[in-house]
């Protein structure tokens, strides 16, 4: 019996990383919001690796933070270790990575959700999205509750028709021993959405007490206090280490001997898995000449004995998993705590989305996260945030928020999703961002705080802190440019000599001097030439001087890029009316329905002549 259970502005289905951001954003922007989850335990669950950040992903977490999202703040509260990786490879790819305490991460997020005035949480399974005239009107749960709403955001992760595979064992299930969601996928299909099927996997977890760490290399966190959020307090907490070990020739032999039992190879698994995250058996087969692969043993939290083995995701039978583990140095006496598995799931083919993450077919229906064919907590959270923001803006009848490829990794992510045909789960890489040098983790606040403030997600306190930072930056920059030295300055001459830096020939400003690769801004702080000692400020100044040439080169590229992006294509364009498009372009444009000429030009199969044809078409329309 279906009954009317309530009415909301926005309903979020799912409570993973996308769902949490979506629900918080919509609620904080003033929408009456309901978050529906299949269980309280699965809120902000990290069913795979216990880490957040890394190249491409750290930048995203900082962007989420700058826009007023939660992931950065939450991981700062729940981390057991922080490290900056890629330190020697340049400012654009330096990336913070945290090892998180999974349980704390869940609990802290839950606290935040419960604190939100406009947000209700409901434990239920949504089975149907209700629409009228291709517009969302409500959702219906398995138990018959009908909720009316103006917008729905589906963030169901890998739950849709989730199927767990371990060797020859296969059963319906969600990630981390949760139940799958069976009927929602059919409801989406009925609405006209095209679905696909992907696969991913996770390694076995082992008991810390059964590990011989003396045979492994310790990987501690960085000593200095690090944080993702620009507003988190700097905290000193004891850190937990990760440990490095490796597979052996015996391990690989065990894999080879059991390939006939591997669902990856026996044909049981049909969904396509990500190349950047292959199963261990795949690695052994494809890189047969390698006699060893790195394995990282990572803590899953402070209060648990579970440890995650990065590098060993597998769907081999459990008995083989045990054999494999025992062949690894340090794991001779290992006891398994959780079996590794592969999971297949339905996803929404993302070319059916607009850049707002609203589906083209159904007005008011948004999808975000792994359901869109992505992988990774960070990618999911970013989409959740954008979907939440745009659902709220839509309810409030305001202009949508679309981040450009030139201003955020989130922009790159979403543009890629809606412009490309995915043939594997999508993961962000720094190499996907053409303006990588501008999209750094250090300047995410400078790029996006104002945007977050304008849409109402960044609160006054954060805005004030940000304004203050801008002010200091400006002052320090002026000082650096105004402070000059001549070859006659003895102290500077001595200092330069001590750094093996060339002698001055003319008067030169500190700003210019800092461009020399051998000089560091800390040196100038030590010399008393710079008074500020806020690490963020110093880092910012140093990057701005040192890489000024490359940065301005990229800024020029962005100017050209933005000219194409700013030519919008009207939503109601009928491509059949456009004379002169190639057949392929016609079909692709109808499928992807690009937002701008720039986006159209990135669709495979749309060439330069087709772009010209579109431009001429619009001009002709304009003159009518």
């Amino acid at each position, binding site marked *: 019996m279906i009954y009317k259970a309530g009415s909301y502005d926005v309903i979020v289905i799912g409570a993973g990383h996308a769902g949490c951001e979506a629900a918080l954003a919509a609620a904080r922007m003033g929408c009456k919001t309901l978050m529906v989850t299949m269980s309280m335990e699965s809120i902000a669950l990290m069913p795979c690796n216990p880490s957040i950040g890394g190249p491409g992903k750290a930048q995203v977490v900082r962007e989420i933070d700058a826009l007023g999202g939660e992931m950065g703040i939450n991981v700062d509260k729940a981390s057991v270790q922080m490290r900056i*990786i890629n330190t020697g490879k340049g400012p654009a790819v330096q990336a913070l990575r945290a090892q998180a305490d999974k349980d704390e991460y869940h609990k802290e997020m839950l606290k935040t959700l419960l604190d939100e005035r406009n947000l209700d949480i409901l434990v239920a399974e949504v089975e149907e999205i209700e629409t009228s005239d291709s517009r969302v009107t409500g959702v219906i749960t398995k138990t018959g509750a009908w909720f009316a709403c103006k917008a729905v955001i589906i963030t169901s992760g890998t739950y849709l028709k989730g199927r767990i595979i371990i060797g020859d064992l296969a059963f319906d299930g969600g990630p981390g021993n949760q139940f799958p969601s069976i009927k929602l996928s059919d409801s989406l299909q009925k609405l006209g959405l095209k679905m696909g099927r992907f696969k991913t996997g996770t390694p076995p977890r082992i008991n810390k007490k059964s590990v011989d760490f003396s045979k492994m290399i310790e990987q501690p966190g960085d000593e200095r206090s690090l944080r993702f959020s620009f507003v988190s307090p700097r905290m000193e907490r004891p850190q937990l280490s990760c440990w490095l070990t490796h597979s052996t020739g015996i391990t690989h032999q065990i894999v080879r001997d059991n390939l006939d039992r591997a669902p990856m190879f026996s044909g049981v698994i049909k969904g396509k898995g990500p190349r950047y995250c292959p199963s261990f058996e795949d690695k052994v087969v494809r890189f047969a000449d390698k006699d060893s692969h790195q394995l990282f043993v990572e803590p899953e939290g402070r209060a648990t004995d579970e440890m995650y083995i990065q590098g060993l995701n597998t769907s081999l039978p459990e008995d083989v998993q045990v054999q494999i583990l025992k062949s690894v140095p340090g794991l001779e006496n290992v006891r398994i705590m959780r079996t590794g598995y592969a999971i297949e799931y339905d996803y929404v083919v993302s070319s059916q989305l607009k850049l707002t993450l609203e589906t083209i077919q159904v007005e008011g229906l948004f999808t975000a996260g792994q359901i869109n064919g992505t992988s990774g907590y960070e990618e999911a959270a970013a989409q959740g945030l954008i979907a939440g923001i745009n659902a709220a803006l839509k309810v409030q009848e305001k202009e949508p928020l679309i981040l450009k490829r030139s201003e955020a990794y989130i922009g790159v992510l979403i543009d890629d999703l809606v412009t490309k045909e995915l043939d594997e789960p999508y993961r962000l890489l720094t190499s996907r961002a053409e303006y990588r040098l501008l999209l750094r983790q250090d300047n995410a606040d400078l790029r996006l705080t104002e945007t977050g403030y304008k849409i109402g997600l960044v609160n006054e306190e954060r805005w004030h802190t940000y304004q203050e930072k801008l002010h200091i930056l400006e002052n320090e920059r002026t000082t650096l440019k105004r402070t000059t030295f001549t070859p006659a300055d003895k102290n500077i001459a001595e200092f330069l000599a001590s750094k093996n830096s060339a002698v001055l020939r003319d008067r030169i400003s500190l700003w210019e001097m800092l461009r020399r690769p051998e000089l560091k801004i800390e040196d100038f702080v030590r010399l008393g030439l710079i008074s500020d000692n806020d690490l963020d400020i110093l880092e910012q100044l140093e990057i701005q001087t040192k890489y000024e040439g490359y940065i301005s080169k990229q800024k020029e590229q962005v100017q050209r890029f933005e000219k194409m992006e700013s030519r919008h294509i009207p939503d109601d364009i009928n491509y059949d009316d456009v004379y002169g498009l190639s057949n392929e372009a016609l079909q692709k444009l109808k499928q992807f329905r690009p937002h701008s000429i720039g986006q159209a030009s990135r669709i495979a199969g749309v060439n330069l*002549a087709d772009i010209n044809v579109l431009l001429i078409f619009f001009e002709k329309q304009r003159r009518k």
Partner: protein
Amino acid sequence: MFDDDIAAISTPPGEGGIAIIRLSGSEVIEKANRVFKPRRLGVDLTQKEGYSLTLGWIVDGEEFIDETLVSIMRAPRSYTGEDVVEINCHGGTLPARRCLETVLKTGVRIAEPGEFTRRAFLNGRLDASQAEAVIEIIRAKTDKGLSLALKQLSGKNSNHFHELEDSLISINAMVEASLDFPDEVGEPDYGEVKSMFASIIGKIDQILAAGKRAEIYREGISIAICGKPNVGKSSLLNALLKKDKAIVTNIPGTTRDIVEDFINVRGIPVRLMDTAGIRATEDVVERIGVERSHEVIQSADLVIFLLDIETGITEEDLAVYESIENRHVIVLVNKEDLEEKRISEAQLEDLFKEVKVIRGSVKEDIGLEELEASIENMVLSGEVQADDMEIMLNMRQKQALLKARKHIEDALFALEDVPLDCLGVDIWGALESLGEITGKNLKEEVLDRIFHDFCIGK
């Protein structure tokens, strides 16, 4: 894409009396002015009004490319509705191409097929009813251009591009894998990166040289013969003509008072220009090299400078040489067969330090073989042809290769001083430039390569 500066040769290909290079965009007048040397000193294209004509030279630094008439049309009263410059070249196809290349060096880019027409339409210079016609033009030009360019790259020559593409993808994959997968992939070996850069530059140079060779064999070169009166210019011209059985034409200089002849030197079509024909009066020594002969010399690809061993090196010789010093010169010391030798080895070495000097006698056919060999050598830049590469490059391909080369050069230069992500800007840039030639999105292939070459995965 919308209003940046573009240029193209807008007259149909083939030998014509003149060729027109059209430029359009907001800064084209200023940019054209940078490579324009007006006939009358003090003239400045940027000060010219719309619909004006200016006589002068297109110059590449010190080098005179061609004498031109430049017309200026100011926005919106031009074909495209933007500022337009049209350079009327006098010298036919090759000089027109070289003028275009010179213009491109100022940051103007080569126009896409049909781009002038498209801009004209978008800027309201063409009637709305012409939209379909404009689309037909763009479609035809783009599709034809693409299939032609791709055809050129397929077959026998394709492997050269593939090798280049392959090494660029490799180096991109190496760098990007290290940046995106630090846990699995270590830092690239800088020594290896350096040698890969060097080999990429080598490969590009090889392709460019092959392209240039093909261009030279197809388009030919011009050689001016100069020297003081009676030094043997006409005899040399005749001797070279006689050697070449395949004389194409013999055009007595009418338009410019130059004697022009077309000969064939070791397969290279050569337009010989004898400056002797220029001067009717030979009495005014000081006026040597002035005026028209000067023009001929300046626009020639190569100058043969004749000396007379009997008279020694005179003031007059030095005056002539002064006017050609900045050109590619071969010195031919004539009349070597005579007893009286007034030019010493030491003198020659002192005067012509880096210049090829041949001792011979036009009359006795001494040294002419060596002269031909030197001509071939110089125009082919001494390129060994052992690579057997035969590549015809169109202007767009050549520009793309030059851009790719510049990126790799910049990366090589900065290698020790900047971090990997900055290097990535240029390494990517090179890949993108090359992608313009093959029309492929090479970035996707970089990802494929990463997953193929490196074992990546948590």
